[in-house]
């Protein structure tokens, strides 16, 4: 087990494992997402208060969860990058960032599409949406830093520091935004929280969350492969791979 884990730290081996996992993860993602979509859109009964509009929850909440989870993955990989300087960790961190930004973007847009029928406007400075917006800024800062630095390894280590600073800050930002939201409590703002979520709604929600997680694993590994190929372009195993691709 430990040996297996150790070998995963080598870019060549990681690439091969990721390549082999890809079809399995891909099909699992597809199946789980289709089941989740059917369950959420067709089987789950409409909410007695929000009608069918609440169905946005099945994509909004998983996207919001993923936006935080991916940042945690980035920070974890960043810590490994700084401590052990593993190229695999660098690749995972850089692969995760744009996906996290996409999940954050989806959480924002679906949240605002849900907000329109609930609040009457597309955007309300509600605590959760505001935190999510700032999280998007954190992701964009990380991506901008990566593209601004020419040397890949320097960029990765700088990004790792930024991701760790961000992860320390996220709870503080979250808390401060909550405090701010209670300070400026608007007149009769309906809470976005699902009213006492029942099992018929929770089950498809969890299925969708699993689907999003699998999607991140699938896409993240493909992207990590790209990062490894670019970072290791001159090493023997990548050249071997490229040669085989020709024939």
């Amino acid at each position, binding site marked *: 087990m430990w040996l297996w884990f150790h070998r995963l730290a080598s870019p060549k081996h990681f690439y091969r494992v990721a390549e082999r996992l890809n079809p399995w993860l*891909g099909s699992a993602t597809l199946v789980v*997402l289709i089941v989740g*979509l059917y369950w959420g*859109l*067709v089987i789950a009964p*409409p909410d007695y208060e929000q*009608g*069918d*509009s609440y*169905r*946005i929850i099945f*994509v*909004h909440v998983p*996207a919001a969860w993923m936006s935080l989870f991916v940042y945690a993955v980035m920070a974890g990989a960043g810590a490994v990058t700084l401590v052990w300087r593993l190229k695999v960790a660098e690749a995972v961190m850089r692969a995760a960032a*744009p*996906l996290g930004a*996409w999940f954050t*973007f*989806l959480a924002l*847009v*679906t949240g605002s*599409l*849900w907000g*329109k*029928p609930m609040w009457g406007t597309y955007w309300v400075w509600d605590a959760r949406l505001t935190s999510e917006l700032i999280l998007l800024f954190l992701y964009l800062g990380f991506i901008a830093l990566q593209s601004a630095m020419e040397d890949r390894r320097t960029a990765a280590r700088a990004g790792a520091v930024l991701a760790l600073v961000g992860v320390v800050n996220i709870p503080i930002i979250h808390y401060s935004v909550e405090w701010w939201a209670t300070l400026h409590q608007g007149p009769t703002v309906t809470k976005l929280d699902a009213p006492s979520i029942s099992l018929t709604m929770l089950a498809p929600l969890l299925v969708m969350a699993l689907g*999003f997680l699998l*999607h991140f694993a*699938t*896409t993240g590994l*493909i*992207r990590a*492969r*790209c990062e490894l*190929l*670019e970072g290791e*372009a001159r090493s*023997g195993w*990548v*050249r*071997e*791979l*490229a*040669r*085989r*691709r*020709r*024939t």
Partner: protein
Amino acid sequence: MQEFLYMGGYYPFVWPAYGLVLLVLIGTPVAARRRERRILRRLASQEPRGKTSA
């Protein structure tokens, strides 16, 4: 079917939300795969011709 598409009147919100999510969920892996293939093609073109093994 029509009732399903109507979404209790919330169709202008539910369907764009799901549509956008699906677009991103499909777009990101497809883009990643194409990027990988592009990288491999570029690397292959840099390799000297004629050799098939190291």
